[in-house]
Every structure is written in structure tokens, then in C-alpha cells.
């Protein structure tokens, strides 16, 4: 069987989403409403007709192409929704992104389905059947009903679309057999051509393909000839491949409004899961995500989350968002949640490296800690001491935001001991009876050490001394040579 599968050079998968118009609108409905009969309607031949409906509606006898009035007569409590092409397209883009994780060759078919070239993708998933199985689970997870067709070329795959999702790859012979027995009316051609098929007594695709090509080209137009050429793998399929967008923006609308923070978490989770799909497809990491919470009336609130390291799991992102959300004041009800990000970095090679020394684990933990502290306490609460090449102590040691560390060499030209603590502002020292006094009397132990700096601006010349108090604490004092005033600048510890 496996050998048999290998002989197929091209394997195309056609995914068709029969209930997409309905399923794209479901997230806007409340859970209660979803249990009721729902139908999506569209304008067909100047009449509003049912496009698709859920199983509850089918139980009432509602089926596609019924007019709205008939449908409502059959089931008075039917929820009728007008079709929204926009949300269907968004939904389809997400499905394309999801399929992109299975194969790099995805083609979007108008707003009906997707073509996937899965040839050669079996190694990664340990067999085509595994791949199909995983794809089905993923699609079900998204809440999308899907059926598929498998064939040696895109057109054949579309023609062979079954009424269910097949998770087993059919053999070559089976595909050929199915293709020849396909009824001709499934081929998208003009009514006139369908009639001439009938007149010629052609019923299946096999009948048509059995005829000599020259005879056919005399009777039928170029479009059909193109289709036949494509079915025979003689003509390439011309369509642009799907590519993930350069930045991520997604939203969830909630017409009823969300009134508390807890209820925001579920749509946020969905958005983050979509973001993660996007990031996996693009093989990159994001460094920052931004949330917008928009009420119907009034100003929207924003929330920005900085990420220090390789955080790509939606669980982590949700945890960080949640921490920051606790601090945020939200409008009374939120109608729309938007998630955007456009700051990406390539996925570090470390993801694929063998972790020999176990360092990355603790590094990951540190990153997680920094991110959660950032999210809960705010960015300004975190800092790191940074060494600068400067003579003045307050400039030699500064605080910077974490993660922006630059390695500098140690300026060890000072012989005298230096303190561990530095006062943010040098504190003036009083003089009492020829004795230095800061909280308590201080006496000089050693010094001075002269420091000059900043001569290009306002010149500073300081003599640094080591002093201690009666209880053994040591201080770093200096005397400004120009003003002869004393200051405490640091504490030894």
C-alpha cells in the first residue's frame, strides 16, 4: 500500500467548507442563540434564499435555496442572518493559515475552498493518513465543517470532493476509477455544453476522456479543453499560492458587549491561538503584542505587552495579558477586541538545537519571570544596573530597562574601595563642632581619592573619603573642591 502511494507524484487535496457562511457568523452569536435553528440567506435570482442552515433548522425541513418566506413559514423561530462575505473571507484566511502548517503550497479558491499540495509532506507527519487525520482534528477544533477530495491535480481533487472528510489516502487505481465515473454535470461548464453532452450520450467524465482530443476540440470551447488538459496533468494550474500577511491583525466582535474582565478572556484566548498559528506559519516570534478594547460609544482602551524572550505559546501570552488586564480600567462594555502585532524576530535557531547543558531552561524561566513582572508591575518597575565608561560615579553606574544590556569593561583604575550602594542623589553632610554629621557623627577612615570628570561641561572635582560611624557602618563621602561642601554618595555593605 505504501509503495503504491509513493507512485503518485502529485497529491492535491481540496478542502471544501459547506457551512462556511454560517460558521463564519457563529462567533457573533451567544451560546443560547447557537442552539436555535439558524439559516444564512443570500440574494439569488432577485429573491432572498436560504444559502445554508444548521442541523436544528434542517430538522424543521429547511434546506438550501428555499425562499425566506417559505423558511419562516416552516419554522417561525428561525434566526435569519444575511450572508457576510467579509467574515467568510477572514475565516477562510485563518483556515489557509492553519493549512499552511501542513504544507507550504496552499491555494485559496475564491471563497469556497482551499487547495493543498500535500505531495512530499508525508515524512514530517509519518504518512499521509496521519497528516489527513491531524488536519481533520485541527479543522474540527476551529469549529468548521469540512469535506475533502484527493486527486493527482487540483481540478481532479475538486471533482472528487466527497460528502465527508476522508482520512485515508485512496490508491491510484481508486482515484482513476472514481474520476472516470464522475458525472459530467459536476464539471463547471455552460448549460449549452451540458446539453450537448446529453445529445452525444456522454454521462461520465470517463466517456468524455475516451473520445479523441481533436474531435472534442472541434465540438467544445477552449475552457473545457483547458479543463481536460488540466485533468490529464498536461497543463499547469495557474493560481497564486497563499502567503501569510506581513503583520497580524485580528478582531472578535461581540454585538451583545462584554461586561467584565473574566468574559474577555475567552475571546482573547481565541485571538491568541490565531496569533500563534500565524507565528508558526511565518516561523517567527513576536516581541510585542497590542490589545484594543473598543466599546460601542466612547474611547477604546489599549494595552501593550512587551515580550523579552521566545514566548510563543498562547497560554503564556494569555497569562501575561491577563496580568496586565487586571491593572487596566475598561469601559463599561466591550464590543470589539482587536489584537495586533507587527514586531517580529526570526525564530531563534535554539529551537532546533539539542539542549546539551540545560541552560536554555533556566534562561526561559528568567524570560518568563521578566515578562510576568513587566506585565503586572509595569515596565518602569524593572531595571538593571549598567556599567558605563565614566569617571563620575553617578554616570558610571546607571539603571536601564532589562534586556538592553551592553557589555562594558570594568574601569578599575580607582585604587580605593568602592561602595555597593549609591545614593540616587548625593546627600549633603552637616558640620557640627568640626565633626561630619549625617544621621549620626561620621569619622574619616581613609582618603582622599580625587575624581575629576565632566571637564568639558561644568567641571567637577571631588575628593572621595571612606568614613564610618560609631556603629560600624561605612560611608562613601566626597568633598567638592570648589565649594568645600561635603556629601554622602554611597554606602558600603
Amino acid at each position, binding site marked *: 500500500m505504501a509503495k503504491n502511494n509513493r507512485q503518485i507524484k502529485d497529491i492535491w487535496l481540496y478542502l471544501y467548507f459547506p457551512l462556511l457562511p454560517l460558521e463564519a457568523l457563529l462567533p457573533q452569536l451567544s451560546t443560547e442563540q447557537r442552539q436555535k435553528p439558524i439559516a444564512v440567506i443570500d440574494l439569488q435570482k432577485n429573491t432572498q434564499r436560504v444559502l445554508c442552515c444548521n442541523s436544528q433548522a434542517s430538522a424543521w425541513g429547511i434546506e438550501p435555496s428555499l425562499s425566506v418566506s417559505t423558511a419562516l413559514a416552516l419554522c417561525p423561530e428561525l434566526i435569519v442572518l444575511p450572508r457576510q462575505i467579509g467574515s467568510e473571507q477572514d475565516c477562510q484566511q485563518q483556515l489557509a493559515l492553519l493549512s499552511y502548517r501542513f504544507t507550504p503550497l496552499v491555494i485559496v479558491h475564491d471563497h469556497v475552498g482551499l487547495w493543498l499540495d500535500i505531495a512530499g509532506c508525508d515524512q514530517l507527519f509519518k504518512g499521509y493518513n496521519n497528516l489527513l487525520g491531524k488536519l481533520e482534528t485541527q479543522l474540527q477544533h476551529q469549529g468548521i465543517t469540512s469535506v475533502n477530495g484527493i486527486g493527482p491535480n487540483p481540478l481532479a481533487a475538486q471533482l472528487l470532493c466527497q460528502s465527508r472528510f476522508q482520512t485515508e489516502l485512496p490508491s491510484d487505481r481508486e482515484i482513476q476509477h472514481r474520476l472516470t465515473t464522475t458525472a459530467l454535470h459536476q464539471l463547471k461548464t455552460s448549460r449549452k455544453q451540458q446539453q450537448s453532452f446529453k445529445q452525444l450520450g456522454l454521462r461520465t467524465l470517463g466517456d468524455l476522456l475516451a473520445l479523441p482530443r481533436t474531435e472534442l476540440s472541434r465540438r467544445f470551447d477552449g475552457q473545457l479543453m483547458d479543463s481536460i488538459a488540466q485533468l490529464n496533468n498536461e497543463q499547469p494550474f495557474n493560481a497564486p499560492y497563499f502567503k501569510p500577511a506581513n503583520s497580524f491583525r485580528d478582531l472578535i466582535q461581540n454585538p451583545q458587549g462584554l461586561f467584565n474582565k473574566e468574559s474577555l478572556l475567552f475571546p482573547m484566548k481565541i485571538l491568541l491561538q490565531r496569533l500563534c498559528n500565524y507565528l508558526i506559519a511565518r516561523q517567527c516570534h513576536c516581541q510585542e503584542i497590542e490589545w484594543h478594547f473598543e466599546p460601542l460609544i466612547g474611547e477604546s482602551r489599549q494595552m501593550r505587552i512587551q515580550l523579552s524572550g521566545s514566548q510563543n505559546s498562547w497560554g503564556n501570552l494569555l497569562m501575561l495579558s491577563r496580568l496586565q488586564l487586571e491593572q487596566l480600567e475598561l469601559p463599561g462594555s466591550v464590543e470589539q477586541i482587536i489584537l495586533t502585532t507587527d514586531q517580529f524576530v526570526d525564530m531563534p535557531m535554539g529551537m532546533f538545537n539539542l539542549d546539551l547543558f540545560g541552560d536554555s531552561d533556566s534562561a526561559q524561566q528568567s524570560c518568563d519571570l521578566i515578562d510576568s513582572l513587566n506585565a503586572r508591575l509595569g515596565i518602569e518597575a524593572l531595571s538593571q544596573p549598567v*556599567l*558605563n565608561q565614566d569617571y563620575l560615579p553617578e554616570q558610571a*553606574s546607571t539603571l536601564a530597562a532589562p534586556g538592553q544590556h551592553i557589555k562594558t569593561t570594568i574601569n578599575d583604575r580607582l585604587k580605593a574601595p568602592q561602595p555597593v550602594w549609591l545614593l540616587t542623589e548625593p546627600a549633603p553632610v552637616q558640620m557640627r563642632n*568640626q565633626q561630619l554629621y549625617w544621621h549620626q557623627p561620621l569619622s574619616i577612615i581613609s582618603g582622599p581619592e580625587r575624581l575629576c570628570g565632566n571637564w568639558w561641561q561644568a567641571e567637577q572635582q571631588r575628593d572621595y573619603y571612606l568614613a564610618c560611624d560609631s*556603629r560600624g557602618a561605612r560611608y562613601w563621602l566626597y568633598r567638592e573642591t570648589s565649594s568645600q561642601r561635603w556629601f554622602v554618595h554611597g554606602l558600603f555593605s
Partner: protein
Amino acid sequence: MANPETISGLLTRQDTWRGRSQRRSRPVAPTGYSSLNLLLQGGWPTASVTELLPRQFGIGELSLLLPLLKDHSNNSRLCLWLDPPYQPYAPTLAAAGIALERLLVVRSKNPREWLWAAEQSIRSGALLLAWARQQAPRYTDLRKLQLAAADSSNAAFLFSSVSSLAAPSPVALRLELESLQVNKLLLTVRKMRGAAPGAQLQLPLTGPDTQTAQRTHLTQLPADRHYSYEGYSGHSPARLKS
């Protein structure tokens, strides 16, 4: 039906007392001072919070931890300083061999944030040095931190004021620090698991040798003499550039 996993889990806990059995050696981290290792039965207890109670800041309380900080930061693990009383001075820390990029200073705005940040950092494997806020942490807060440390087997240090000695504390080790003279600390064990309190140790700190230095009275200061650092005396721009 007793679950053997639960029992073995209980037995590995530090706070499970086992009758008649030999006292298990507890996990420690060496302090870098041999006499202090001896006093603390091996070193700083990991998997627990250590409370350090200096009589005042600046007597050398941080020098005690510098060797541990150096080890920890060079093992590419994060050291988190929560609400330090002053700004850490980078050149000294770098000279002590501490990797500055592994040092994180966190400022909390209220006791709730303080407790949350402390617990998070203990649980995620960072070495925590926390300074108590003006309002000393409550017993339940300390217990929370102690449990977090026991769960994650990480060492954590808390600096509180001596006045909190009057209150009981759930931490495993409480050390009172006072200065005998410059560069010499007197450590008094106020509480230690598995040992009687009251043990004392005089610890000379490795630091600038100021023992021999004479205390100078202000009037005796050498007003005109200056020890300028090497290669640079005076402050002419041309000399400075070289």
C-alpha cells in the same frame, strides 16, 4: 490505601519530622566563608527563606551574599533585588564578579505587589534578595514565601529591620547582624532549623583593609595632598584623552 508516591513526596520535604531516623542532610549553598559554613551547618539553606536582620544598613550585610550572587549569576540564573534601599553601584558589583545582565532590580508600589513579585521570583528559580518595606511583612506572607521556597528548592533572602525580631517568623533561618568594628560582623543565630538559637560568630569580611588605617580627624586632613589615580594627575583635557 496509602499512595507510595505521596509518602515519598512527604518524606523528601524539609519540614517532615521523622522519629528516630538520622537527620537528613539539608540542601545548602556554600556561603564562601568557611567559618560561616560551619555555623550554618554547610551553608545557606536552599529550599527556604533566610531572614537577615542587620542593625543598620552599610555594615556589610550584602558582602555576606556577594559570593553566592557571583556563583548564581555566572550560572546564567537571574538574581532579583526587590526594593533595595539604595541604587546598586555597578562597578563594585562587576568587580566582585557578578554578571550584571543577570541582575534585576524591581520596585514594588504596595505590599501586595511586593509579595507577588517575591513569590513569583522564588517560584521561577531566581535568587531573591528582598528588602522589607516600611511595613514589615505579615506572618502569613512570610509563610507563603517560605512554602514557595520549599516547593521550588530555591534560596531566598529577606532583609528586615531588627525590630521584627520580636515577632515570630516561619522562615528556617534568622540571623541578626551587627558590626563589631569596621569590616567585622557579629552574627547571632536567632532561629535555625535543627539547632538551638544563640550561636554567635565573629566574621571578618573580605573587603578593603581598613583595620590598619588610622581614623583621621577632620582638622588633620591633608588639605593639599591628593592621591590621584595612576596615569592621570591634574585635569588637562590633553592628558585625560591619553
